[in-house]
């Protein structure tokens, strides 16, 4: 195209140059004609001047005599002009015919001058003077005649030249119009050809580009073009195919990455190693399209590397004996410079070839799994369904191996954590039980006294029965004994019930009932004290919770309140509900809690009771309320008392 454009431009240049030359030629020709015409007109003007001059001289020639001087000056001036004109005319280029006439006129002019001078200056002899006058006049007439002849010739020439000039002008006009039209149409056709030569391939390329833009990668235009456009279109088609291939590769890579991501993502949720083995084995089989894949890990007990199951395409029973000593495995790892091993031709003796041969592997790949810098195993893939293992396969499994390492570590950590959590739970349960027993212990002496009273009554009435003969009295005493026995049994029963180690049991409970049972438990010891219990219980909705544990909480707080009022006082208990929560407020009029220790009362083993407390009561209570998704708040003022507010939600979710 470049060559075509250059040639076209050169042709256009030649065309316009030719047009310009033709135009210039005709312009010059016409102007030359016009110059000639102008010259001829000048000659005519000159001739007319000559005629005028000669005629003037001639007229004065016949008037010389009377007032002579002035006429003589006029004659002299006219003849000088005549002479000057004819001399000037002699220097011009004329046709030979005209030149001859001019030379003749010039000679005649010289003669005329001589004759005139002689005539003018001659004084002797009238006849002589008249003859001289006639000679001068004759020469003047001859000049006029010659001038007239010259005029005829000049006019003829003028006519010829004028006709020729007009013809030339006409021809020039036609030639110019033809040249201009020719140039215009040829230039137009060249421009159209060039435009078509450029726009067609560009349009085709634009169409192809739009196809590619719309996703039709690999689109090849059938338009072939010429010259540079041919190369451009070929390059474009190549580019389109390359784009398509690269796009496919990218998609394939993305699929693989997606697979890789899916596998690694599953690691976050997997907590046991078998699931990891399975995910990795099946994932690798899909990622690199193999018939066999699995994880080989070190068994630390016997220092052997062996496959872990589940694995893809491998039979556990068949693999039972396939184990590689740690030393051998590590040596292979080290000799590979810690890089993945790719065996695309397993015909020779290669590392791992014994294993591969045992498993019928045509080709195989080993990607090392490291943990904290130490080799712990490898991902093995074998029998690729299509083609050989590639570096890209190795890179992909390399990423997976790193994630497997982390996942295995996490699984191990998770197992450890689970074990520790179980231990912790056990310890907590034991602690709660201990606290519970401690709380019971605090009540023990009072409870023993309370049991002693019915027992004393029973014993007393038993003694009375022995002495009674009247059956009615005996029956009455027996009823008393029964009543006192039941009373003792209830106390013991309650105590037993509370002290039992029970698993967490969430039920629908009424908090007012729970508080009532706790107060019932403490009412016996308070019977002889000066502590007055007041209750203000709203009709609160049931809540979800463990009744036993909540009893323990309330018992702890009420025990502390009683302890805080050794001289007596009022223990106020109130319940209410507000915004999906039940509020339990327990207030005492005790000595209050000093500000400096108020923040520490929920800490484990913190107590102000010295020998009488374990320091676990409030700490356990805090944990229990937390496990119920509730909260405990305490307000206290030294010397005035304390107020505990327990907030419990109506429902507990996700309690495990």
């Amino acid at each position, binding site marked *: 195209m470049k060559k075509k454009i250059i040639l076209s431009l050169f042709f256009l240049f030649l065309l316009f140059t030719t047009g310009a030359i033709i135009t210039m030629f005709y312009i010059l020709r016409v102007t030359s004609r016009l110059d000639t015409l102008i010259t001829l007109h000048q000659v005519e003007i000159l001739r007319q001047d000559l005629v005028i001059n000669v005629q003037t001289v001639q007229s004065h020639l016949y008037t010389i005599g009377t007032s002579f*001087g002035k006429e003589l000056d006029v004659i002299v001036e006219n*003849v000088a002009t005549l002479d000057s004109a004819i001399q000037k005319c002699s220097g011009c280029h004329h046709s030979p015919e005209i030149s001859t006439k001019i030379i003749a006129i010039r000679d005649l002019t010289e003669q005329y001058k001589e004759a005139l*001078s*002689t005539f*003018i200056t001659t004084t002797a002899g009238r006849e002589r003077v008249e003859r001289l006058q006639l000679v001068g006049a004759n020469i003047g007439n001859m000049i006029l005649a010659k001038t007239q002849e010259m005029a005829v010739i000049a006019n003829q020439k003028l006519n010829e030249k004028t006709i020729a000039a007009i013809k030339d002008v006409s021809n020039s006009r036609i030639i110019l119009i033809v040249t201009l039209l020719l140039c215009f149409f040829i230039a137009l056709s060249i421009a159209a050809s060039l435009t078509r030569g450029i726009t067609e391939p560009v349009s085709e390329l634009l169409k192809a580009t739009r196809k590619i833009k719309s996703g039709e990668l690999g689109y090849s235009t059938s338009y072939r073009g010429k010259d540079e456009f041919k190369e451009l279109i070929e390059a474009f088609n190549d580019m389109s195919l390359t784009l398509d291939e690269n796009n496919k590769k990218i998609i394939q890579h993305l699929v693989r990455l997606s697979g890789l991501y899916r596998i690694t993502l599953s690691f976050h949720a997997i907590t046991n190693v078998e699931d990891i083995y399975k995910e990795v084995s099946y994932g690798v089989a899909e990622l690199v399209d193999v018939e066999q894949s699995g994880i080989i890990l070190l068994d630390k007990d016997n220092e052997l590397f062996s496959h872990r199951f589940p694995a893809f395409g491998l039979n556990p029973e068949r693999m039972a004996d396939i184990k590689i000593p740690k030393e051998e495995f590590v040596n292979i790892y080290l000799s590979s410079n810690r890089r993945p091993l790719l065996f695309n031709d397993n015909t020779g003796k290669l590392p791992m070839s014994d294993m591969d041969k045992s498993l019928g592997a045509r080709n195989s790949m080993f990607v090392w799994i490291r943990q904290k810098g130490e080799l712990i195993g490898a991902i093995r893939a074998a029998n690729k369904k299509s083609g050989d293992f590639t570096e890209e396969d190795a890179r992909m499994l390399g990423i997976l191996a790193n994630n497997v390492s982390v996942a295995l570590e996490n699984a191990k950590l998770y197992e450890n954590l689970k074990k520790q959590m179980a231990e912790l739970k056990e310890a907590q349960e034991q602690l709660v039980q201990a606290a519970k027993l401690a709380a019971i212990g605090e009540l023990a002496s009072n409870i023993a006294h309370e049991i002693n009273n019915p027992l004393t009554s029973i014993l007393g009435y038993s003694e009375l029965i022995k002495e009674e003969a009247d059956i009615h009295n005996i029956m009455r005493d027996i009823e008393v004994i029964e009543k006192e026995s039941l009373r003792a049994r209830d106390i013991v029963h309650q105590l037993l019930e509370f002290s039992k180690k029970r698993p967490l049991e969430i039920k629908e409970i009424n908090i007012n009932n729970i508080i009532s049972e706790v107060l019932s438990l403490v009412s016996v010891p308070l019977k002889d004290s000066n502590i007055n219990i007041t209750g203000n219980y709203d009709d609160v909705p049931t809540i979800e919770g463990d009744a036993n544990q909540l009893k323990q909480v309330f018992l702890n707080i009420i025990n502390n309140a009683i302890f805080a009022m050794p001289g007596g006082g009022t223990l106020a208990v109130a319940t209410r509900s507000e915004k999906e929560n039940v509020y339990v407020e327990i207030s005492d009029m005790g000595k209050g809690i000093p500000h400096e220790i108020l923040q520490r009362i929920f800490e484990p083993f913190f107590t102000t009771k010295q020998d009488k407390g374990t320091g676990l009561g409030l700490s356990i209570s805090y944990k229990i309320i937390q496990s119920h998704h509730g909260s405990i708040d305490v307000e206290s003022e030294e010397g005035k008392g304390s107020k505990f507010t327990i907030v419990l939600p109506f429902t507990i979710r996700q309690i495990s």
Partner: protein
Amino acid sequence: MLIKRISLIKPMILIFILIPVVTQAGQNQSMQELLIGLIPEQNIFRQMDRYRPLAAYLSEKTGLKVRLTILSKYGDIVERFKSRHLDGAFFGALTGTMAIIKLGVEPIARPVNQNGTSSVRSYIFVRADSKIDSVKDMNGKRAVFVDRATVTGYLFAAAFLRENGVNDIEKYFTEYFFTGSHDSAIYSVLDNRADIGSAQNTFFNVLVSKDPTIKRELRIIARSEEFPETTLCMRKNISPGIKNSLTNTLLNMDRDPAGRDILKKFGASKFIRAEIKDFNSVFNLAKRARVDIRTYEGDR
């Protein structure tokens, strides 16, 4: 107020109209014209060609517009000087003498020829093949003269003829005529329109220099004494400033390169101061020819 303004405008318009007129008049006045006459001592057209550069030079140097006019015939030169109101003229020896006596003109300068002379002589010549050797041989022949009012073209020949016994020219020659110019007189003899001729040596020499065959074709049979060369004489009442300006310009021409060029075209080497006494030889010749200058008309 408006009336006053109008009355002022009118004189201003008049001033603006008159300013160019006055200026033009001043310019014309500053370019004063000097009309100088030429005696047709040669072909008048060649003479005009010869004198025009000199006139132009004088115009340029003096600031005067020097215009030339041909005085056709020698004889009536004095009358024409008056009638044409000439400021001056290049006079020949005889016309100059006549003008000095009759008009009181003042000679101011005359040219020095290329050969260093500033004088002219008269030649009496015949064709080389002529058998005329003496005045006796001239009897019954055709004679040609330049003009009665010329020393070299007539007066010397008249004196020469008289001194050789010819008292009546009209009877002595079968034909005689005046050509009005020296070169015409020479050509008349050359062309055999006359047998004897009389002309000034300078013109004779000029023609010979142009056409050396003339020297072979003509034979000089008498030569006169020297007479003053053509002299520029100015009218008696000319402004002294103009006269001095003209005189100085002419006398200093040979010191000016442009002037030297003009002098060369003119056929002179310089101009020298002219005086009345230069014309004494003419008075003497007139006596010899028995001519009274005071009454001599110079006409035929």
